[in-house]
């Protein structure tokens, strides 16, 4: 394999990784606060793909993107209200089963509404523009994804570290009960968390599907699980960790596909997860103090 091909694949990998990173943040935030693997997160990401398809049929792209992001965010908050809030005092297993149920419902609902036949993802002209850099060629979305990811993460970090809401989020993730006693409105913080997670999943969805061209009701499952692995890899609850994990998994996966091991590219992610949980359960940047495993 020549140097150019390797670089070309790396570029694709970085782009995929950027989308993964955005989704992984949603997992990491929710897990940090509720100690819940939000199995429905991948399906929110998939639904965002469908929203975009339908929004673009009747609106120009800037408004369509806006509508997609708003609807996705609202859906994330709605799911939390309907399916997780009633189980707040229930055992962790119940909430997880509820999350699996929501994922099941979203998949069946979208199969019903949009049929299981893959739907073409609309092209947004300026995202698909091809750039030439020496021997490398890339569409604008490939270059935009990592940059946008980094910008969003920086904004998110500022939000979490500098604002009052961010402080409340950190407090809740440190100690749920004590935070409640200190007068933090837990439900509001959790809603904000889900809103941020779903918003980022919406952005990730636009970037991911522009490269993949089609959406099916099941196209959220595997990326969802992979992004959870990315979050665990980076240290769950840790935002920069999730980003690093997302990029790492994206790049390795692309390289494995390029080398002809495409059936193993999914398996690799889970292999990485198991190894990571056994060797360093707190992840790359995770805090040591909390007993998680």
């Amino acid at each position, binding site marked *: 394999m020549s140097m150019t091909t390797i670089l070309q694949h790396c570029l694709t990998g970085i782009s995929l990784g950027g989308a993964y990173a955005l989704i992984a943040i949603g997992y990491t935030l929710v897990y940090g606060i509720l100690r819940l693997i939000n199995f429905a997160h991948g399906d929110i990401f998939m639904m965002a793909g469908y929203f975009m398809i339908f929004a673009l049929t009747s609106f120009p792209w800037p408004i369509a993107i806006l509508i997609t992001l708003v609807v996705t965010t609202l859906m994330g908050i709605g799911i939390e209200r309907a399916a997780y809030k009633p189980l707040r005092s229930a055992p962790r297993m119940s909430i997880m089963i509820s999350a699996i149920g929501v994922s099941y419902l979203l998949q069946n609902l979208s199969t019903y509404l949009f049929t299981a036949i893959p739907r073409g993802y609309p092209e947004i002209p300026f995202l698909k523009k091809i750039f030439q850099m020496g021997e490398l060629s890339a569409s604008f979305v490939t270059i935009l994804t990592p940059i946008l990811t980094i910008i969003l993460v920086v904004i998110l970090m500022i939000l979490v570290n500098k604002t009052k809401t961010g402080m409340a989020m950190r407090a809740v993730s440190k100690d749920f009960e004590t935070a409640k006693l200190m007068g933090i409105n837990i439900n509001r913080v959790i809603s904000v968390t889900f809103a941020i997670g779903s918003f980022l999943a919406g952005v990730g969805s636009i970037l991911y599907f522009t490269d993949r061209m089609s959406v099916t009701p099941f196209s959220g499952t595997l990326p969802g699980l992979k992004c959870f692995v990315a979050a665990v890899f980076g240290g769950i609850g840790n935002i920069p960790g999730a980003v690093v994990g997302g990029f790492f998994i994206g790049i390795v996966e692309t390289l494995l596909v390029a080398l002809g091991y495409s*059936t193993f590219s999914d398996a690799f992610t889970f292999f990485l997860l198991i190894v990571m949980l056994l060797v360093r*359960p707190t992840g790359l940047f995770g805090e040591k103090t909390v007993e998680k495993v």
Partner: protein
Amino acid sequence: MLKIKRNHLYSIIVLTLLMVFLYWLNANRLQNGMLVSVLQKGVILALVAVSMNLLNGFTGLFSLGQAGFMSIGAYTTAILLIPVQNLDGVYYMNGVHPAIRAFKMMVASSPEFIQIIFPFIALLLGGLLAAFAAAIVGIAVLRLKSDYLAIATLGLSEIVRAIFSSPQFDQVTNGSYGLNKIPNFPPMLWGAIPSLITPFIVVSICIVFIVFLIKSSYGRAFKAIREDEIAAEAMGINLFKHKSMSFIISSFFSAIAGGLLAMYMRSIEAKTFSITLTYDILLIVVIGGIGSVTGSVLSAFLVTAAKEWWLRFFDQPLLIGSWQVPLFRTGFRMVIFSILLMIVVLIYRRGIMGTNEFSWDRILKRLKFKRSKEGGKK
């Protein structure tokens, strides 16, 4: 004493009636195709659900790897049972591995007795292979707790699926083409039990074994681990030994069910055993009640019948007079089913049975209670 005898009597009567019903069904299987296929699929899923319940409900290990172990059983059974003359037709793309062909030739030329029980040997081998895999994997994975264990086992089943569908194993598993021409259920006891009833007998034997296991001292140790690991360890229960035992036994029976599923479906591919299958089984366990064997069995039949049969009319366009009922079209059945499921998860969290088991005493008590209530009204 009298009560126990009475309960035994009731159970024997019900079991006899069930057997009579199954033989009747066998005689009239052509008119009742849907009922037969729902009952057979239901009983197979009942076994997986009970084995998952052994792990999730009784030992408190939240594992989502059932589909992976089922696929090990299904593939082993399928590879061993595809008739020699069909091999070239099944593996038409990449050819079959010479070792498999040689082994099949050996079986085909073995005495008749071995050929008759060979399907059961194949099921057992699938189970043992899955148990072996579980034993090895368990060493690593069982150190994890709650949701980490769930996601790790989920990952394992995806790894198994990737291996089965990978081009590197084309000559064994036929890669992404899957396997077909798998023979149907074999008859048992030289035809005394027709092939239609075989899955019911096999599953009953397996579930009875699991019930005895749960009632034994091992079962009590499992429950102790579920309630409180640290306390259980302090009482002298070897955590790792019991956890891996539960994991291995659960995988063994999942694989047997997987083998039966392969015989039921007649053709399998790696996609059959995706995450969705595990979710389906988890939902059966949840609806039946986590920690109740009878609940799992009941709900396996209920869920299968509802999904494949009773709710089927939601998928057809419905006309009342000349008015077309809106919403009724393909896929609506699954939406209704998922909503029912969310209602169970959110409101009836205990499922059908909670952690209770079926007992004649409770049913009779309830009947008496109702009767006395009605009497009071009069």
